[in-house]
């Protein structure tokens, strides 16, 4: 690739991060006064993070997992506990904002680590189970996490955790979205990614070609759940309260819809679908409010959203089972006259 020949190899990994950070900080400064926009951007970011991470398991590896909200819950609760414990600590020689972000980062790493551990545990049954059976085990796992959380005193039982410092910022969400996309892209371009794709296409053949299928499947689960945990951690730091009701089967299915809509295996597709499905209810709500006469309809948008998701899934499978982008990335489907990126990264 032309760009990689100009960048020294030692910098290739961190260069995108160095470019992205100032952009995110400027964005943060611009959005300081607009609370709604930054909330919406945070929700969008969390959804993108979830969709991109689920895509590593569902899209790239072909292991249909429908318990993603479980990992998100693990991350949300553990980061919440960490932040509550660290609430009164501050690093004295740093400004408050910076010190807050450092502790947030610590909490997010705890979240990711714990979720990765959970992902490892869920990945293990995939040694023996595949297809529908694995799907139901991941679903069961997500439900078990929810019941455990509901019954644990330290996690606030059904009431949930409140008082978590609201230290999340658009820049932090953006940074993690960026990191997850970077990791997903680099995985899909690497030999690891090729092995995952081989497992997706034909597990038996991949095994016969010498791919260590169990190892790769478990690793895909670990990476995916790490980012889901971080997404949960970020979520916990910008909503006022987290409770078991936020991490049900329904939340898992929302993420599945995003991945399927975008196209199983397409990272950019997952991003586009996550952004679209986050904005859609808002757009519908403002449209109905603009129309004025049907104000109750605007209030019902959240209710209408779920049946619409269901119909969307059915229609999509009937008309275009591979999703909007299929396994292609965004730049593979843009019109010919636009300059294209070459494959790989």
């Amino acid at each position, binding site marked *: 690739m032309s760009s990689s020949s100009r960048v020294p190899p030692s910098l290739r990994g961190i260069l995108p991060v160095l470019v992205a950070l100032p952009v995110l900080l400027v964005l943060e400064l611009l959005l300081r006064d607009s609370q709604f926009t930054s909330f919406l951007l945070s929700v969008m970011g969390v959804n993108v993070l979830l969709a991109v991470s689920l895509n590593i398991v569902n899209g790239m590896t072909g292991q249909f997992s*429908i318990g993603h909200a479980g990992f998100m819950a693990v991350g949300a609760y553990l980061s919440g506990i960490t932040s509550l414990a660290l609430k009164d600590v501050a690093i004295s020689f740093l400004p408050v904002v910076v010190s807050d972000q450092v502790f947030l980062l610590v909490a997010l790493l705890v979240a990711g680590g714990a979720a990765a551990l959970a992902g490892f545990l869920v990945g293990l049954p995939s040694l023996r189970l595949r297809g529908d059976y694995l799907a139901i085990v991941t679903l*069961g796992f997500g*439900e078990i996490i929810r019941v455990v959380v509901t019954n644990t005193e330290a996690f606030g039982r059904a009431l949930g955790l409140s008082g978590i410092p609201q230290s999340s910022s658009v820049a932090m969400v953006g940074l993690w979205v960026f990191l997850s996309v970077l990791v997903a892209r680099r995985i899909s371009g690497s030999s690891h990614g090729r092995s995952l794709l081989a497992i997706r296409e034909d597990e*038996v053949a991949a095994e016969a070609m010498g791919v260590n299928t169990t190892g790769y499947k478990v690793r895909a689960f670990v990476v995916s759940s790490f980012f889901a945990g971080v997404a949960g951690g970020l979520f916990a730091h910008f909503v006022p309260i987290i409770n078991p009701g936020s991490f049900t089967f329904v939340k898992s299915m929302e993420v599945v819809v995003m991945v399927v809509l975008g196209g199983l295996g397409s990272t950019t597709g997952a991003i586009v679908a996550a952004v679209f499905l986050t904005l859609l209810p808002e757009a519908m709500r403002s449209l109905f409010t603009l129309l004025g006469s049907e104000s109750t309809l605007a209030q019902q948008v959240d*209710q*209408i959203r779920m049946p619409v998701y*269901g*119909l969307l899934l059915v229609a999509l*499978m*009937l008309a275009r089972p591979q999703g909007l982008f299929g396994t292609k990335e965004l730049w593979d489907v843009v019109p010919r006259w636009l300059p294209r990126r070459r494959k790989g990264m």
Partner: protein
Amino acid sequence: MSQLIQHLINGIAAGTIYALVALGYTMVYGVLKLINFAHGDVMMVGVYMGYATALMLGRQARGSVGGVLLIFLVAMVGCALLGFLIERFAYRPLREKPRLTALITAIGISFTLSYGFQLDIGFLPGSAPRAFPQIIKPAQWFTLGDPEFPDVVLWNWQVISLLVAVALMAGLQFLVYRTRFGRAMRAVSFDHRVAALMGIPTDRIISVTFMIGSALAAGAGLLYAIKDTSVSPLMGLYVGLKAFVAAVIGGIGNVPGAMVGGLLLGLVEEFVVGYAASTWRDAVAFGFLILVLLVRPGGLFGRVAAEKV
């Protein structure tokens, strides 16, 4: 001791209902190799049909035998039609596609039904649970100990649901193994392309299987509503999931397996509620499932098909 007997009774009563719902999953899976995620929601729609019929009949008629039969008939026929429509327009076009597409479609249908029924527009019932009318007047058929505060109670609806469940299961077993239609079903299940070559009308067999499964779901759902005395749009999601767990525990695609799985799940849940904490019930159900699958990946009675390259 009496407590144990009571838990056994409750567990079996709950288990038969799970088993009945699980039969629908198992039949569809046996014929199509598709986990029909929408099965529980079809059941929910059936319960609402029964509910509407019961309201229309009025207080007098719904207690009578004819009234109860009519309620069951309306719900089962209505659900059979719904099952036919779902199969015809959502699953049949996908029959030659990868199995994952059909699974996602099924999840889509499930969401459309369960959340569609929560809307408050037109005839849709809204999200609040409603009290299910007493179509069978509860009576204690058998008590043990003090007549005022008995240690063990056997309710009439428990006996009725057990009898109905056993009758439906026996009918199904007869249908599958003793009739021409059952033989055709088994042939389609074995290999639907070869079955078509042999002159079996594959599409019709699959449609009818779907309709029978959905009708069974409606019957089971009504029994559940009588036990639980309430209906809600989300009941399908949860009862359906449990029944699915039961079907997988028994080995999905296996009719006796679904019965054993349902009974086991009902008993396990009842003992958890009775001797541990009721809030852990769902976790134990899924934990039990994962445990069974880890030991026997095909379920208790299932076989793991060797994978061909």
